[in-house]
């Protein structure tokens, strides 16, 4: 077990190193960089003074140096303009767009992102699992067909379109303000009961919209897995021996059907941070997604690089967790034995 973990850690570090190099170089691929683009924009507005200031920053952040040097400074294995200060030293760099250290920019958005995506994940599971069990037990019933139809609509509907339509009608029917995660009245207020209420109201639309396609997909897969299990001998035997149907279903077939979802946890973790970019963008939610997109578009390189690295770390950690969980859940799986 220890040996297995050590091996896994070694590959994780290698993977992350590769990812960091790739992300950094891809961010740097488009011509120019944040500051020179900034200068062009400022100059086109006749703001020469600000352009001079941006020039000053280019030197400070070494943006005039070769890409590989910038990369090594960023991860912290080469001294920059103020010594070794990079990811390895816990310095996540500077966001030009916000004119702030990266950790401050991301930190604020992070917990709201987690909240939204946790709500979505919970919604997906709470809705999908009972429906899937129902559908599998009553295959080809009217209800099964109805849910199937709903599921396909959920899969086919572009989420951003649904988001816009729902925003409009939630505002018209229930007076919920458009966009954001709470009414802007509460923006600078401390957390009060009213603010939490407003937050919950505003969570409804994004959760529904983001969760809908996931729910639909999960119903289909869960139903298929369960149908596989339900025709197996041990289940038939259990029922023949007089085990109550619900218990018989939940004890084994259901656990087996969960396997694919456990192995999905690896993907779920990064999704908690970077999921739902499009919907967040359309709905103007103050989450990490829109920040990442804006950073990529404006080549705010340290900000974009950090978010991508963060997601990468979550992915490899998630993979490890799901491997360990699977081993614990399903006795048929053995680690590292051929």
């Amino acid at each position: 077990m220890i040996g297995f973990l050590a091996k896994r850690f070694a590959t994780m570090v290698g993977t992350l190193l590769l990812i960091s190099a790739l992300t950094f170089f891809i961010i740097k691929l488009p011509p120019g960089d944040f500051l020179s683009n900034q200068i062009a924009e400022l100059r086109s507005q006749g703001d020469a003074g600000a352009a001079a200031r941006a020039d000053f920053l280019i030197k400070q952040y070494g943006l005039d140096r070769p890409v590989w040097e910038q990369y090594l400074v960023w991860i912290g294995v080469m001294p920059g303009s103020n010594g070794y200060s990079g990811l390895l030293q816990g310095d996540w760099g500077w966001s030009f767009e916000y004119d702030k250290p990266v950790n401050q920019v991301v930190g604020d958005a992070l917990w709201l992102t987690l909240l939204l995506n946790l709500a979505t994940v919970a919604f997906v599971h709470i809705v999908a699992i009972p429906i899937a069990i129902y559908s599998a037990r009553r295959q080809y019933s009217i209800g099964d067909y109805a849910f199937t139809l709903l599921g396909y609509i959920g899969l086919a509907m572009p989420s951003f379109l649904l988001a816009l339509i729902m925003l409009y009608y939630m505002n018209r029917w229930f007076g919920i303000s458009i966009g954001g995660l709470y009414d802007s009245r509460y923006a600078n207020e401390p957390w009060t009961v009213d603010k939490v209420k407003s937050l919950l109201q505003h969570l409804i639309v994004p959760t529904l919209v983001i969760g809908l396609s996931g729910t639909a997909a999960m119903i289909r897969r869960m139903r298929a897995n369960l149908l596989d299990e339900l025709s197996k001998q041990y289940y038939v035997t259990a029922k023949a021996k007089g085990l109550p149907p619900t218990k018989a279903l939940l004890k084994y077939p259901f656990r087996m059907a969960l396997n694919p979802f456990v192995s999905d946890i690896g993907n779920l973790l990064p999704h908690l941070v970077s999921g739902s970019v499009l919907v967040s963008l359309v709905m103007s939610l103050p989450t990490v997604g829109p920040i990442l997109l804006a950073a990529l578009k404006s080549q705010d390189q340290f900000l974009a690089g950090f978010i991508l690295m963060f997601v990468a770390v979550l992915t490899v950690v998630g993979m490890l967790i799901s491997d360990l969980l699977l081993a614990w859940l399903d006795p048929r799986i053995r680690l590292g034995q051929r």
Partner: protein
Amino acid sequence: MTRLPRSLNRPLTRRAFAKAGLGAASLALLARGAEAQSALGPSTMPLPSHWVETPFFQKMVDAGKLPPIAERVPKQPLVADLKARGREIGKQGGEVITLAARARDLRYFSAIAYNRLVGYDEKLVLRPDILESVDNQDDRVITLHLRRGHRWSDGHPFTAEDFRYWWEDAALNKALFPAGPPIFMMIDGQLPTFTVIDEVTVRYEWPRSNPRFLPTLALPRDPMIYRPAHYMKQFHTKYSDGEALAQAAARAKLKSWAALHNRMDDMFENSNPDIPTLGPWKIMNASPATRFVFERNPYYHRVDEAGQQLPYTDKVIVDIASAGLFPAKANAGEVDFLARGLSMPDIPVLKEGEKAQGYRTLLWPIARGSQVALYPNLTVADPVWRKLNRDVRFRRALSLGIDRHTINNAIFFGLGQEGNNTVREGSAMFEPDFRTRYGIYDPEAANALLDEIGLTERRGDGTRLLSDGRPVEIVVEVDGEGGMTVDTLQLLVEFWREIGVGLFIKPQDINVLRNRAYAGLPVMVAGFGIDNAIPTAEMLPSELAPIFQDNFAWPKWGQYIETKGKNGEACDVKEAKRLLELYESWLSTADEGEQAKIWKEMLSNHADQQWSIGTVADALQPIILREGLKNFPTKAVYSWDPTSLVGIYRVDEMYWDKAERRVAQAL
């Protein structure tokens, strides 16, 4: 495509103008004369007979935390002449909600809350605003008189020291301004002699006229030649301990004291709530936030005739929302006032919510030379295209091949102005010929010109062939964000097919496009036309001369001028060189009549040479105004330069007519 009878293809300038409902308002711009020169003197408005304490500050004044109003305003405040401009004396109080797409866009608030040392009024006459008066001798010796007793928003006196600090300790400091002081402060590379005469008088003196200086102070992007010295000195090594500053910079994750100074010095960007301001409202919180609050400045220098201090509204609240949600939020009644960020395609959505939510959508013409203009790149790297783009007959033919009337009807609701990329009717510089010379639809003439150039060989589908056998297919590169631009180009594909010219649209990110243009790659770019289409003679004609690299008609010539000959290429086309000469002669005269003559020759040169090919101007800018907000014009001209978005219409004079409407967003 159905052909309209010839008679309808004549540009409808007059009619379109009347349709846009713009009679008197903008024609008043014509009525400019000698008053411009004399407008820089002190105001003749009488002081109010008594002062009225602002309700918002009453408690603080009673508690002794704030001096009473008589001691807060300067000895000689700026008394707003409301009646003369058809406005009413308002009531103080209330909040106004508006939107911005991101925290960085808060700098546009500084353009909207227009307050400048000298600023334009609604007739585009330059008048003292923060300053009490200006003595101007031939634009060579310029003396600025501050208002005695004027204070920063923190109560500290605003004096000549604030000008001295910026000039001597910032602009001339190599660490803070590595490239030297801003260019408008110099003439022929010569710096002014700066003298502090007394605590409310400073003088700038140049070896010869610097006609750029005063107009630059009134730009939407305020160059700010003064700083709150008492605040900034704590970040300057000359006045504070370098060691402590270095540590403070390190704590803020900045690399040097200079970086820290620059970070804190952002009067225009509104990102530092601590820095004092002279503006009507002061920002109260820093990003990151989804809502920014601006509160009234207790020491603001403008008052009304009744003795009330402006601004009328206590707070301006800026909510951050993605730009795509602006129309939806306006439609849901979540904003009181909004202009920047809305555009013509949003009008139906905005109109739809008016009744239910109690707001109005004002539609103002945007003063641009042309909403969509094409820029044949005269400095393109490809030699064959370069030769063709430089042939004036080719540019004229492309212009004559555009059916502007159809574009107007299809995209601009028929309300636009058809013609060249030039100044607007109503500007003192306007002549009808500037708009129509080669700016009409005449495909026969266009075909004849193209034949004359020698593009007579054609491919099977009728597309003409270049001298090296390639088809005449122009890839027009365009900023992918500009929806109206792309729509217009779609129509152009059809028109140019008639004259044997192919057109492909290549949308891309604006930054990529700029960098490609600097490198001489695009054959043609489509974008906005002239930014300032309502110029007066004293405004800089810099957009008309080949001096900027971000003008897509001549990026490399502009580069050459901007880098003082290090990069780019020297301008080598006779008619464009003439523009350079004209620009130089504008810079060397302080005589307004002379400047007007130069403006007109430059505009005539542009119409004749078609450096840029205009289509339709006067797109509409929707502006959301909540019912009950008064003292805002229903119809005026919108632009970045010179109206500073809506800045010159003085939003500090807006007020709520009824108390119950004042509270922000009662749900």
